[in-house]
Structure formats: C-alpha cells, structure tokens
C-alpha cells in the first residue's frame, strides 16, 4: 500500500471518520477536530512503528504532521528508502 493510503487508513480507523471522501490530502487534522493532543501521540506512535522512524521533538510541528499530505511528504524526506510514492 502506498504511504499516503496507509496513513489515511490509520486515520479513518482510529479517528472514526464516517466519509473517507471528507478527508482530503490537505484537510487539517487538528483544526478539523480529528486528532486531539492524545490523538497526536497515537499518530506519532503509529508513524514510528509503521515506518520504522523516530520523530524528533523539533519535527513535531504542523508543517510535518498537520495533514495527510504533509505527513506523506515528511515521511518521504525522513525515510526515503522505506516509503513508497
């Protein structure tokens, strides 16, 4: 499964999204109320296990984690060998 889809699937299942179509690449996960502060921990834990990376403190910013598109971009930069387009 391509990276973006794996992330999207995780968010749909764990943040009980009713209509996957509402979740676009650029939908803000925080503003949209999908992910609260504990949810952010869940998301980071998922990224670390699923993609075998370590998210550094200074990487925990909305620019990296704020939407599915940004997460995918971040993963591509972080672990280019692991993730697929």
């Amino acid at each position, binding site marked *: 499964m391509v990276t973006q889809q794996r992330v999207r699937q995780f968010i749909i299942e764990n943040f009980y999204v009713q209509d996957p179509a509402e979740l676009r690449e650029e939908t803000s996960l925080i503003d949209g109320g999908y992910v609260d*502060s504990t949810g952010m921990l869940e998301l980071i834990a998922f990224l670390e296990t699923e993609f075998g990376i370590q998210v550094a403190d200074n990487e925990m910013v909305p620019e990296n984690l*704020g939407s599915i598109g940004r997460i995918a971009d971040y993963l591509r930069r972080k672990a280019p060998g692991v993730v697929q387009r």
Partner: protein
Amino acid sequence: MCGIAGVIALQEGLPPPSLDDLRAMLGALRHRGPDEFGLYRDERAGLAHARLSIVDLATGQQPLSNEDGTLWVVFNGEIYNHLELRAELEGLGHAFRTRSDTEVIVHAWEAWGEGAFVRFNGQFAIALWDAPRRTLVLARDRLGVRPLYLAPHRGRLWFASEVKALFAGAPDLPRALDPEGLAETFTFWTVVPPQAVFQGVSELEPGHLRVVSPAGTVDRAFWSPRYPEEPGQGFQGSAAEAAERVRAALEDSVRLRMLRADVPVGSYLSGGLDSSLVAALGRRVKGERFSTFSIRFEDAEYDETAFQREVVRLVESDHHEITVGRRDIAEAFPAVVAHAERPLLRTAPAPLYLLSRLVHQAGIKVVLTGEGADEVFGGYDLFREGKVRRFWGRQPASVVRPRLLERLYPYLARSPVAQQGLAREFFGRGRERWREPGFAHQTRWQGTAALQRLFTPALRARLGGVDVTARLLADLPAAFPRWTPLAQDQYLEARTLLAGYLLSSQGDRMLMAHSVEGRFPFLDTELVDLANALPPAFKLQGLDEKRVLKRAAAGLVPESILARKKQPYRAPDAMAFTGPGVPEWVAAVLEERAVAEAGVFDPGSVARLWKKCQATGGGAQFSNADNMALVGVLSTGLLHQQLVRRPPARATDIHCRTTIDRLAPPAGPLPPGQQPRGDTHGHPAAR
C-alpha cells in the same frame, strides 16, 4: 425536596384534566417524593405534587392554597429565608395555617406579585394557579438548582420536574430527540435552557418566571447575574476584608441550610477545598456530629480518600464511604441516563448516583455539597487557560507566553504538544481574537463539536447551518462586553454547564434518584452577589485559583487541603465500558441495528470507535475525544432506548393523601360497595 407536575388548558372547549393523567405524572416522579402525594383539579387546571417531607412534616402537604382557596401552589425546593418572609407577610396582614415554606409562596405572590421571587433565597421550581384569573405562574430559582420542563400539546400546557412525567401524563406527546438539542450537547457538553434534548419540550430558564394567562404568555428574567462594569464598581475593600466577608456569608449560608430542616442534614465530602469548607462550617454551626459521605475510587488516579479522611478526623463526623470501580459505573449507567434524561459525555454522574443510594440507606434525606464554588469563585482550569491564552493573544508571536500552559497542564511537558508548533495549533488557534466573547471556551466547544462528525448524514442535513455557538453568543446580556474577561468566562461557564449539567446530571437527578435533597451553600443569593462584586484578582490571582476562598478557609480546614493542587472530579470514562466483565447492555446499545434505529450516529463510525476502544483495552490511556465519543454514543443510545422507544409507564397505584377535586360531587355517604381510598376530597379547610 419534591416533584411537581401539572397541566392547564390553553384554549376553550377542552374536557377537564384527568385525575389518571395527573396520577401517571406522579408515578413518574415517585423517586423525587415518595412520602406523600397530592392533587388539585378544577375545570381547566390540574396540579400534582410528590413530597419528600423535610420542613413542617405534619402540615406541609401540597397542593396548598391561600385563605380563600383561589390560589394554589405546588412547589419543589426550599425557601431558606421563609421565617423572615413570613414575619414580613404577617405584618402585612396575611394569616398562615401551617409552618411550611410553601405557604409563604402563596402569600408572597399575593403581596408582591412578580416581585416575590427575587425575595426568595433558596432553590425552587414553583407552579401557582390563580383559578379565578385563569393564570398559571411558573418560576425557577436564580441558578437553576431545581428543574422545570414544559410541553405545549393539543391545546394544553404540560409541565413537570422531569421530562418522563410529561411523557407519562400525555402519552400521545411525540417522543423524539431534538437535532439542535443534540448539537448543543455535542458542543457545550449539555443542552442550555430553554433548549431541551427532546423535540417539543423546553426547560424554563434559571431565574425566569413565565405567566400564562388569557392575555397571553410572558416569560421574563426576575434575576440575572451581574458583575462590575468599570473599575469604580463592585467591592472596594482589601483582600483581607473580602476574605472576612466571604467567610461570614458562607457561614450564614451553611447555617440556613444545615439548621432549617426538620430532618437530619448530612454533607458530601470529596476531599477538595469546597466540600471540606462546607463540612467544617457545618460542624461549627451545628455544634454536634453529623453524617458525611464520600466516593472512593478503585482506580488510584481518581481517588481522594486520604484527604477525605483528614477532614473526617477534623469534623469528627459519622463517615460513610462507597468504593466505586469501573464495573460499578457500567452497571449503574443505564439508570443514571434514565434519571439524567440527556446524553452524557462523562461518567462522572454515575458515582454520585451510587453515593445518593448510600445516603438514602443511611436514613438521611438532605445533604450539603460544595457544588458551585468553582463557578462563583473562579476555580476551573478553563479560567486559567483562558487567562494564559489571552495573555498569549496580546503577543501572538511570543514563544515564551505559551509555555505558561505547562504550568496548567504538566502532562504537556511530556507530550508532543509541548512543541511550539503543535501548542500553537491546539491552544493558540484563533488567539488573535482574544477580545471576543467565548474566547476561553472555544477550545472546548470546538473540540467537542468535532464529535458531531459521528452524526448520521441525515441528522447533519437536518441541522443544516445551525451554529449553536453563534446562537449562544448572540444572546448575551447587554453588559457582557463591559465585564472583565474572568467575569465573562464565569458567566458562560455557569450559563452552559451549571443548570444543564452540574446541578442536574451531577446534582438534582442523581440525588433525587434516591430521594435525597441537595443543598448548595455556595449558591446562596448573598454569597453569589458578594462573589460577583469582587475584583477578578481576588478570585484568580496570577494562576492561583479561588484565592479569596482559600484565604477565607485558612484555619478552618486542614493545611493539606489548602495546599493541595486542585483535582477536578472525574471518574473512569471509556475504560468503564471496555475490558473483561462489561455488562451485556453495552454491546446491545452499540449493535448496528440499535445505532441505526436511534438515528443519531453513523453505525459504521460507531463500529470503528468501538473497535478502537476495545483495542485500547481496560488499562491504557484513552484520548479525551475517545472518552467523550464512547460515553456520548452509549448514553445517547440508552436515552433513546429508555425514553424515546419505550412507551411511558403509567402508574396506577398512586394514592393521594391530599386530593382537592373541584369537580367532585359534594361529599356525602359513599354509594354501597365503593370504598374510600384514603383521599381527602374538597376544600383543605376540611382537612
């Protein structure tokens, strides 16, 4: 404490109210007042009363009338200053037949009309029927301690202390959840009066009276909260003087509530400052032992036993404890929702339901609690958070200011949100609008409203563009913008959660479920007026909450209680419904067909939520969103099952001690074969 109910005709040509309907309403309120029942009926109106006898046990029966039997009252609550009002009314020439505070109400209405209610220091829901003028007057205490619901239906107005009595009295009243009521619940954590969660039902607003007469209906506030509007207004003394005044006012308040009862009064003890102070003052004014009651939790995270016992040693009370575990909450929850009559996003009412059962078993009918102190004296974290976020909003680019949030929420230091970027997203959103009404509450409201994504597409479509937050903020007092930010936050906190949640779902409903009356010293009229007049820094000094109250409590409660960090009252939420041994009703409520039938939540989303919660399991950490979502889905399902789908029960075994039936034939010998049922008929002068 009691339950009241009634019905009046709003148009001509209707048959008189039926005694069976009135008795059915009483049946639904039996838990509120199991001691005695009473009815009044004439051509147009019926009044019903279920009594929990506390004041004037011998002659305090209701309905009760004025001297000539033209004005009738049913009343739920207490008028603490009834002795003073009675003396005043006697001076005006009114003659009293009983010792009860109920009788004060009819004479006060005769003497002062609409001006009567603002003179009452107490907690009340009142229905007055002026038969010759065909006028019904409904009134509810300032802060909404006592409930009162209304439903116009087929040319009549039905009213009652609880919605289930409306459904029982008028079984053809449609029963359905209201989309806007649900949107409010999944934003503010509860409906805000007059909005109710059932279609066609409304709640009389706190501090309001409604007059229904042939001339029409008028609803107006007889009281509304006020705060200083500019520096020269309000309390001008020193912090020490303020603490002295608060201490004296609270002691007076406790004295009225502890001593004005003809039955023993106990006290709740959470281990926090507020209830500890009430218990300590209770001991002082009573001068002897009384009973205290505490909740302990099996989960250490929620438990406060050590602090509770420290206060028990100080006040030397007859202490009673109940230990609550996760399964206890899950097992009690269906009954909790049936009593609360609204969706709940927290399980915190459940332990209070179990606690009132303990009180009942101990033979106590009245308890004092510490409820209200956080609203009145600024105790909530939300007030501190609002202060930090406004401080930050004034310098939105500051990287230092948001770090104050870590002082409020130490967990943030260990969370990704400690990182600047995320903190800005979670707490800093919209901080440039720090001057706007509702700024402090927006984080909570938006976070909760996000749960509406679980609603079915049909419900979302019916809601269309309804914005319950905008609706609330468009309906603020004219003076609101001139109040200090803290006063604005206190007002909104009380408006959204005091009557609708704390005093009902965690108050009246859980207490009355086991026939226990709660009394709330912090909501005393004079104490509230004093607290509202204080400068904000006397309440929230820096980030130190309830400053003046702590100062007032010095020397009265143990030092450790004063020094401890405030612990919000919480109970295990989602974890109560996951893990081994969960009661069967949980799976039944979450079943796809049941979710679809209730029509509120999308079954697929609920299935994903449930799967996630089960995977998280019994011990682990649930997010705030998951906790609220699961508890909200379960409680809404239970509400639908118990109050919407199930036809209302109509009790047939209600025997009234008092029946005033103006339609009954004149009393005479009973026809052969007809047995008296212990009822008294006719004018109460005959009693």
